[in-house]
């Protein structure tokens, strides 16, 4: 069965410093992986997705993630945090569901705080 584990429930960084949000996955086949972001009182927005084309995936707002099969990891990084990055981030894996549809399995989320 597919699953994801987000290793930190809270991460705090200073503005201008790098961001690292960690995610490990479990999958019996080559997975599709996503990072979504949720700002306070907003819906979820797709940051980036990996679908086996390239192991380093670039997303919106300067975020990127690297798929490492040997480590079963898909960590999210950003070189320099901005105050507007403060939000909750979800690592997500896709799995097969009924009707030939894929469904998403969400991690429990990492709340990113950015200090001035």
């Amino acid at each position, binding site marked *: 069965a597919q699953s994801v584990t987000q290793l930190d*429930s809270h991460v705090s960084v200073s503005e201008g410093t790098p961001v690292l949000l960690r995610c490990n996955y479990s999958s019996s086949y080559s997975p599709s992986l996503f990072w979504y972001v949720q700002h306070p009182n907003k*819906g979820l927005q797709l940051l980036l997705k990996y679908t086996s084309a390239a192991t380093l995936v670039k997303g919106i707002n300067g975020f990127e993630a690297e798929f490492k099969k040997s480590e079963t990891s898909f960590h999210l990084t950003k070189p320099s945090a901005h105050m507007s990055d403060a939000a909750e981030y979800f690592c997500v894996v896709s799995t097969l*569901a009924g009707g*030939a549809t*894929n469904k*998403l399995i969400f991690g429990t989320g990492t709340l990113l705080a950015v200090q001035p």
Partner: protein
Amino acid sequence: DVKVTQSSRYLVKRTGEKVFLECVQDMDHENMFWYRQDPGLGLRLIYFSYDVKMKEKGDIPEGYSVSREKKERFSLILESASTNQTSMYLCASSLWRGQARTDTQYFGPGTRLTVL
């Protein structure tokens, strides 16, 4: 831009009431999903639908039902609301491109339901 709208941002209901949550998408997507989001648990799939009048149970369907009479609309029904159904409910939609491909899910802003 894909737009997924939900009928209410905030809803307060009493125990035992029948509750309807409505979701509409404007991009002719085949797949629609209902999730609930609880702190520390991430998002959990309640039901999904891959076609009109088709529905499949997700991971936590107990206490819920759904209806999809038109392609653009997917309703979540709480037949007899209980306090443990107090949560944030998120609707999403995606294209269907066959079992081998995973398409991005687009989320609505969410409905925060409180059951007293």
